[in-house]
């Protein structure tokens, strides 16, 4: 078989359902074969869109996402998408074309050293120099991407290799002597964990994205409910434990709930599961969970003791470890702790002032009221991402999809597209800011053409809200380069755009843009219009863009300033 045929054979054998890609000179042979095959593929409108779409598909389904791009600019356009997937441990295989082997290193047309460029942002990558190696490289790529701690793997295939012929077959199995992830937790460590849990009076589970990746949500929920242990999650852990459960504390950290952060600061035992003690979670690390012993369960040994000292490390697959732990664990006396937490939840709920202009939080609450957790919420980055995390209850894993580690603006729309492809029967929303949505807005075309009925919720505050919030709080209100609408928040002067004697304060006109791309567009400015607009979008089979003109200077609270202790929460503007 030819190299390109091996690749398609690999897609079939790996049961790849969908490929997101963009063609070019160095991948013509692959696209030619795709044209003739029955493998489904979607032409995005930007390679970054293809990478994020593969990522969104992977997060929504747990399967490996696949994207293809040509050499040079095609490959470099994947970079942000690959880095995003890497930071959040998303299984992905990226295939890039490369200039012919003999031209590599000669600054050939559209040559970029993409394996060099992506070395620090891939779990592994390959430059294929010999077609005989292609079958096992592809097998390894798929295996590595979705085993252990998942991540993106890039395979760079020179054009001559795509056309070279090999007798080697696609292998059934792989064995990589230098790659043996630890799945089974050490029983002694699990017993030690159980002992700490039995003794704890104020235990707290801190759950991260790893719980969802391992499929361990059910086991963790069982542990929490049986042992009466409250649960707080990271941004990517949302959905690992039902947000409506009385034991749920929602999210912790920089924009976490006050009760979650209070609980962290008072707990006597912290059970960190599939989480990595990120700085947005811990705040000032030396003052994080000062009274707690720490159990840390994670598949990646490098996550353990990276940022904090741990009393009982357990290296292994979260689900497998929890199954064992659930067998031997006994409950401690946590009644008064659980009661205390219920009091905190009552005393310090998430809140916002309802007066004045339409509030972004209100919009998110209404999406919750209409869907009650039965939807996939994808987000962009910024305030929109935080409000989506705070004002919606995630009940099931894989229902909150967001770029946590890298914080990539422009992630949401293409990722929502991928999620909808992976879950055609689910209702999918992209909660967006007016800044982020413009970073990959071209993918509206892809959504419309592929009949993906996703609902894009633009919370239009006329500014780069999250950055503006930092400027308001820490930079004397100097809104340097954060004003997007033409008036500027709070009447401060922005750029004026006048045409035909009419001055517009919002640019672009998202409704016209939506329509130009073939999507439905609805603009909402009043509370009373929110539910009808959402209902209309949900009913529509077309891609919908809902623009909500919301209060420009609304802030996300509570907030822990970068580097401050979780005990120092800012709860509102002074």
């Amino acid at each position, binding site marked *: 078989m030819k190299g390109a045929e091996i690749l398609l054979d690999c897609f079939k054998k790996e049961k790849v359902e969908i490929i997101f890609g963009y063609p070019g000179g160095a991948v013509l042979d692959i696209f030619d074969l795709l044209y003739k095959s029955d493998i489904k593929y979607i032409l995005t409108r930007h390679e970054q869109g293809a990478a994020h779409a593969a990522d969104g598909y992977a997060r929504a389904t747990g399967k490996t996402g696949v994207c293809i791009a040509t050499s040079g600019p095609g490959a470099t356009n994947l970079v942000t998408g690959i880095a995003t997937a890497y930071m959040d441990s998303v299984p992905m295989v990226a295939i890039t074309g490369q200039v012919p082997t003999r031209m590599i290193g000669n600054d050939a047309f559209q040559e970029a050293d993409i*394996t*060099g460029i992506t*070395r*620090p942002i891939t*779990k*592994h990558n390959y*430059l294929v*120099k010999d077609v005989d190696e292609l079958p096992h490289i592809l097998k390894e790529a798929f295996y*590595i991407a979705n085993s252990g701690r998942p991540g993106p793997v890039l395979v760079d295939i020179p054009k001559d290799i795509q056309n070279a012929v090999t007798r080697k077959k696609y292998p059934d199995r792989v064995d*990589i*002597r*230098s*790659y043996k992830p630890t799945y089974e937790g050490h029983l002694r460590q699990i017993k030690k964990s159980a002992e700490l849990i039995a003794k704890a009076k104020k235990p707290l589970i801190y759950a991260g994205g790893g719980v969802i990746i391992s499929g361990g949500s059910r086991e963790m929920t069982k542990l929490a409910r049986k042992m009466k242990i409250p649960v707080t999650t990271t941004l990517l852990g949302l959905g690992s434990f039902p947000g409506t459960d009385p034991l749920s504390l929602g999210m912790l950290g920089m924009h976490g709930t006050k009760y979650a952060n209070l609980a962290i600061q008072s707990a006597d035992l912290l059970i960190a599961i599939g989480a990595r003690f990120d700085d947005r979670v811990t705040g000032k690390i030396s003052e994080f969970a000062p009274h707690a012993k720490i159990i840390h369960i994670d598949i*990646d*040994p*490098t996550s353990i003791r*990276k940022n904090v000292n741990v009393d009982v490390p357990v290296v292994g697959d979260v689900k497998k470890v929890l199954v064992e732990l659930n067998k031997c664990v006994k409950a401690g006396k946590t009644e008064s702790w659980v009661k205390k937490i219920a009091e905190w939840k009552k005393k310090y709920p998430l809140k916002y002032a309802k007066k004045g202009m339409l509030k972004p939080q209100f919009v998110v609450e209404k999406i919750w009221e209409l869907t009650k957790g039965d939807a996939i919420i994808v987000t962009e980055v910024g305030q929109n991402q935080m409000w989506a995390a705070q004002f919606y209850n995630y009940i099931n894993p894989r229902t909150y999809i967001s770029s946590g580690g890298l914080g990539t603006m422009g992630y949401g729309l293409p990722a929502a597209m991928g999620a909808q492809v992976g879950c055609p029967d689910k209702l999918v929303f992209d909660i967006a800011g007016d800044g982020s949505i413009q970073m990959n807005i071209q993918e509206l075309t892809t959504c419309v053409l592929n009949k993906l009925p996703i609902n894009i919720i633009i919370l239009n505050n006329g500014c780069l809200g999250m950055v503006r919030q930092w400027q308001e709080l820490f930079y004397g209100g100097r809104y340097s380069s954060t004003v997007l609408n033409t008036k500027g928040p709070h009447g401060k002067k922005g750029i004026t755009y006048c045409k035909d004697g009419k001055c517009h304060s919002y640019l672009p006109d998202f409704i016209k843009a939506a329509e130009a791309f073939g999507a439905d567009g609805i603009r909402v400015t009043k509370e009373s219009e929110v539910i009808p607009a959402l209902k209309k979008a949900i009913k529509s089979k077309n891609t919908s863009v809902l623009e909500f003109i919301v209060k420009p200077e609304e802030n996300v609270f509570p907030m822990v300033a970068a580097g401050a202790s979780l005990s120092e929460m800012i709860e509102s503007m002074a």
Partner: protein
Amino acid sequence: MKHTISVLVENKAGVLARIAGLFSARGFNIDSLAVGETQDPSISRMTIVVKGDNAVVEQVCKQLNKLIDVIKVQDFMGKDFVGRELILVKVSVDGKTRHEVLQIVEIFRAKIIDIKTKSMTIEVTGNDLKVNAIFDMLRPFGIKELSRTGRIAIARG
């Protein structure tokens, strides 16, 4: 703290760049790095000498282990190991100093590998102490060139 780290890796293109990348991304300067095949030609051993805070080096070692092409990582810090280095040093000599230099070479059991009227090239093998000591003795004569392999190491027993 100076750490001597021994890394067994797949003998493949790109592996060195991956390993070096982990150090350079943290702004670590590698003191020395020596690579060569092991008894199994598909496996290479890299010996890396690096200065760094113990906790940071421990983290780097874990991350080295995480690289797909890395088979085994060993930090010799606090362990029983033998470390050796080979250096080639070209020293200026003339009729008057040649004899003195020859004496030093003899005392240190080094080897002369090339002699010209104005210079002498000496090969020295040994641990840090020995290599540094002979180098200090030769320095006053004028060092024209120096080339070192960097440390290679192996555990005792």
